[in-house]
């Protein structure tokens, strides 16, 4: 009988066995990891990829004639095709390796942005961006005498597109918006935003940091010009991620950092750049983490994605219903279309106090502003408690979380 490559039905207890950390016992208690939006946990195959590389074939890439260097180069180079497939880019030349989303946005701002943004132009972001998709544009605006504009949102934490046509005016030269908001969980209608922007010939960067962990992404279908993400949010290692850019745009862009690898020839009279994507990848790359990011993508290809998606939708639904039953809890971010992220506040109770209480029980959540201070300001709150789920989380964990949350409220409410 033929072995199916994809495990048939989604079995959360089976899947959990792939993640060794899920059997850790912080303070001697079973770990309940609900901080997946900050970083996901890693399956054993990703950990093994790191260990194998360092144990068996650590060498610099593209520089050695020897066995190890060739083996490392092959493994490294193969990942570009894996990333291409993961987001369905047209060509692997459209994939640039970077440290993560933050560096990705900075790369586009420093290359495409520096070249194309001029005094008096505007750059459009949304009201629910992570600081990583705000500050690089502010730096660019400051340098160029350009201005930042903001797509507003409503009380549910959904973008309001009524004013989009007006915001996409003649001055607007770039749009940078998140696919999925980390602080609220909102999944934005980016296809519509991209289509509208393109009708005015304005290119769009999509911050895909949260989206890649929950939804299958197809950059050709989205038709975005740039897409950036971090491997660590999608089961891969920290310190690595990618920028996708349409080839014709990448070809016109100046280099990012100067150094080795990114040049064709160097002389003191002048230097010529290497081809895309190498033009943007100066210096020895993060070889181990690139290879482990490839292992993470391989892992995604073995799991039942629609089953995983259903599991997350069910967790979101279940937890939302239970939270709504607690009178003093207010959920922040109630968009119709949400990823498995729930931000909430508790009346008269400090978020950090709750987070620390839950920590004493082995439950990991995040509290605070989630690198999205403008979102907190908009809702007029100092911060939230955020529980974010991955497909390896269970309803039983949510039951325990809710039980302990109620205890925390009882203890802390004055």
């Amino acid at each position: 009988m033929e072995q199916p490559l994809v495990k048939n039905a989604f079995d959360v207890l089976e899947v959990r066995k792939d993640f060794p950390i899920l059997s850790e016992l912080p303070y001697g208690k079973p770990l309940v990891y609900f901080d997946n939006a900050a970083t996901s946990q890693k399956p054993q195959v990703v950990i093994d990829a790191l260990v194998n590389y360092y144990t068996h074939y650590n060498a610099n890439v593209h520089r050695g004639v020897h066995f190890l260097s060739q083996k490392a180069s092959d493994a490294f180079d193969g990942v570009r095709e894996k990333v291409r497939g993961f987001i369905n880019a047209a060509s692997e030349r459209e994939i640039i390796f970077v440290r993560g989303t933050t560096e990705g946005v900075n790369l586009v701002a420093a290359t495409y942005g520096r070249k194309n943004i001029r005094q008096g132009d505007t750059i459009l972001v949304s009201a629910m961006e992570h600081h990583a998709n705000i500050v690089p544009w502010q730096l660019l605006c400051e340098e160029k005498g350009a201005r930042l504009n903001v797509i507003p949102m409503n009380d549910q934490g959904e973008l309001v597109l009524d004013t989009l046509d007006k915001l996409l005016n003649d001055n607007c030269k770039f749009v940078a918006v998140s696919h999925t908001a980390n602080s609220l969980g909102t999944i934005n209608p980016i296809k519509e935003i991209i289509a509208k922007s393109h009708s005015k010939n304005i290119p769009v960067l999509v911050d895909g940091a949260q989206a890649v962990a929950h939804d299958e992404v197809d950059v050709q279908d989205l038709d975005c010009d740039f897409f950036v993400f971090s491997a660590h949010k999608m089961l891969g290692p920290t310190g690595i991620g990618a920028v996708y850019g349409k080839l014709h745009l990448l070809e016109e862009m100046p280099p990012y950092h100067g150094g080795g690898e990114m040049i064709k020839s160097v002389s003191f009279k002048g230097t010529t750049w290497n081809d895309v994507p190498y033009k943007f990848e100066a210096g020895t790359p993060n070889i181990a983490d690139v290879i482990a990011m490839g292992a993470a993508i391989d892992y995604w290809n073995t799991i039942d994605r629609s089953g995983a998606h259903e599991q997350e939708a069910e967790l979101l639904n279940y937890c939302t219903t239970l939270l709504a039953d607690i009178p003093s809890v207010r959920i922040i971010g109630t968009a119709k279309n949400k990823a498995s992220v729930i931000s909430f506040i508790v009346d008269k109770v400090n978020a950090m106090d709750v987070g620390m209480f839950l920590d004493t029980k082995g439950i990991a959540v995040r509290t605070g502003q989630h690198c999205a201070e403008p979102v907190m300001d908009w809702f007029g709150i100092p911060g939230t408690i955020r529980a974010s789920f991955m497909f390896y989380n269970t309803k039983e964990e949510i039951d325990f979380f809710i039980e302990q949350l109620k205890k925390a409220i009882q203890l802390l409410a004055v």
Partner: protein
Amino acid sequence: MRTISEIENEIIDDFALFDTWEEKYQYIIEIGQKLKPLAVEFKIDENKIKGCQSSVWLTANENNGIIEFFADSDSVFVKGEIALLMEVLSNQSPEAIVNTELGFIDQIGLRSHMAQTRANGLAAMIKQMKLYAVGFQHKNV
């Protein structure tokens, strides 16, 4: 009058009764809940130490060379922390406060539970208390 290091030692002894982070957390919450709220007229921006996830209001009085601190926070845990600091530093002379090193925080095993931002908040509280002490020191000379 007990010295700062005598009080520190008492706190260290108290905490020695607790084995787990859970117990220490509960105890600090208990202390925090007992802290007398600061009167509203003192809850002003001038007295505010803004942390990342909580705010602290701190003020001080001096009487006959002895300083008394008053404080509040929107976080019960932070109130507990500051109550501990006040237990150690209130009713001391400006000189004693300025010169103390405060070793007890490390010894009761709290530092490891303070994320960077919170540890910064704690450092900011101690710094502000010492600044008050320096101010009163100069007033007296």
